[in-house]
């Protein structure tokens, strides 16, 4: 029983990270109808930017309290990823709008490789995994075999807070209304006076900021980051957003948790080694896509976000 609960807790943690990555995929698809495959690698950029900030703080402000340190690491990650995301949107994805969607897909896949290789080659000793600082208290609550780590609770609640903020921004603000309008009918939105370019860039900034939080969460959760971490996170985030019906924010969040559930199921409940958990999870995603091509939460493509 305790073991199952433990796996549930871990699954929820993973699900939250995947959901945050998937939200980006689904937002970008909503406003521009493109799949930005480099999104996973921007998550990795966020983790490395956070790590760089941590190193800088160690050098120049060694006495800084842990909370402040975490805040600065988060700020560095968000700023770096938002800058990368907005530059990519403005100078790569928007110019490719008139080209077939496949071109954007290929271009962003290549961009992902460029980002990965850049970190590997130019970050100090970038090809080796880096220990990520533990920026949260080590307290844990022990009950038999069940360990509930305080830092995990904080990470989970922070992720939930980010999702609530995204919800409020999309549904309760003028900017969010414009994002939804662009997603539903780009030209009609323009005719209402929406500055299309600005809204696209704002959407990329939003998706990227959320991804940066996921990057730092990922680093703290595993205590380690490496240049390739975005590849799998990207594939998972993309799968999660497809399961949820691309373009649907809530679907993407649900998709993230579904994927994490499948991984956890693959690791505990099935008769083969837990090393096969990703094979199992992606296999189920393929089956879901075959049975429900528009995602589990299916909607007509005209009604996104």
């Amino acid at each position, binding site marked *: 029983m305790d073991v199952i609960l433990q796996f549930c807790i871990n699954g929820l943690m993973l699900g939250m990270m995947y959901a945050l990555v998937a939200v980006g995929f689904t937002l970008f698809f909503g406003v521009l109808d493109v799949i930005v495959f480099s999104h996973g690698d921007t998550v990795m950029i966020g983790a490395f930017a956070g790590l760089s900030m941590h190193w800088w703080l160690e050098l120049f402000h060694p006495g800084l309290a842990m909370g402040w340190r975490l805040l600065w690491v988060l700020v560095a990650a968000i700023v770096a990823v938002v800058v990368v995301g907005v530059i990519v949107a403005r100078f790569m994805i928007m110019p490719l709008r008139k080209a077939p969607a496949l071109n954007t897909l290929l271009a962003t896949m290549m961009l992902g490789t460029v980002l990965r290789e850049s970190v590997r080659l130019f970050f100090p000793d970038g090809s080796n995994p880096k220990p990520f600082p533990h920026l949260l208290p080590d307290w844990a609550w022990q009950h038999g075999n069940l360990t509930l780590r305080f830092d995990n609770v904080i990470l989970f609640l922070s992720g939930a807070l980010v999702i609530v903020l995204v919800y409020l921004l999309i549904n309760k603000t003028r900017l969010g209304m*414009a994002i*939804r309008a662009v997603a539903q009918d780009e030209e009609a939105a323009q005719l209402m006076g*929406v*500055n*299309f370019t600005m809204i696209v860039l704002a959407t990329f900034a939003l998706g990227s900021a959320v991804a940066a939080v996921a990057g730092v969460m990922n680093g703290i959760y595993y205590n380690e980051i490496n240049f390739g971490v975005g590849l799998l996170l990207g594939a998972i985030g993309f799968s999660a957003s497809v399961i949820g019906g691309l373009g649907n924010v809530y679907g993407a969040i649900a998709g993230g948790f579904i994927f994490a559930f499948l991984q956890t199921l693959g690791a505990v409940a099935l008769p083969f080694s837990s090393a096969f958990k990703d094979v199992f999870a992606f296999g189920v995603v393929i089956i879901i896509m075959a049975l429900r091509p528009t995602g589990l939460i299916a909607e007509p493509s005209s009604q996104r976000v």
Partner: protein
Amino acid sequence: MFKPLQIEHLYLAYGSAFVLHDVNMEIPPNRITCLLGANGAGKSSLIRAVMGLTAPRKGSISFDGMDITHLAPHKVVARGISCIPEGRRIFPKMSVHENLLMGAYQERSKAKIAQRLEKVYELFPRLAERRNQLAGTMSGGEQAMVSIGRGLMPDPRLIVIDEPSLGLSPALVNDNFRIICDICETGTAVFLVEQNVRQTLAISSYGYVLSQGRVTARGTAEELKKDPQVEKAYFG
């Protein structure tokens, strides 16, 4: 009083296919000016050029004395031109209320927005009843109301209305024409694009006939009613 919308020597092409040839028009304030023409005559392309959705090849468009030829749509809207697009193009997953708010997207004053909302709800009591309904779940006639109401929300100086009666029952078409007259009476210039010749000419003061991308006839509504070119534009 502002100066009219002026279209001068406008050429527009998609690739190498020209759809507008040397179009000259003037849409004065306080009037309904109509644009008649069969399907494929270039009416919608002209609207797209005015609103900044498609860049013309040559020529110029000015409004209130300022050149708007190459402005992005949101800047055209900021000049005081509003558009009720063909096919209504409401936001299906937004409530009626939000659709109307989108219409006043560039207005920052909450008091003005509230005032205009009230006006629109007065004009269309049905929308007031259904303000929280998702616009995509409404009937065609109700969606037309949302689209017209949304077009009025910016309190425009010029309103471009593209095929408002498309797909509506005759009773609703009559309602629409009555509302268009009301809009004009409040001082807004109306540029009405329609296929419904008789009813359109009945409320317009001036009109243009577009045929294969060229203006083949122009004149007051009375003149156009007698002009054989009008019939020719539709029946070849």
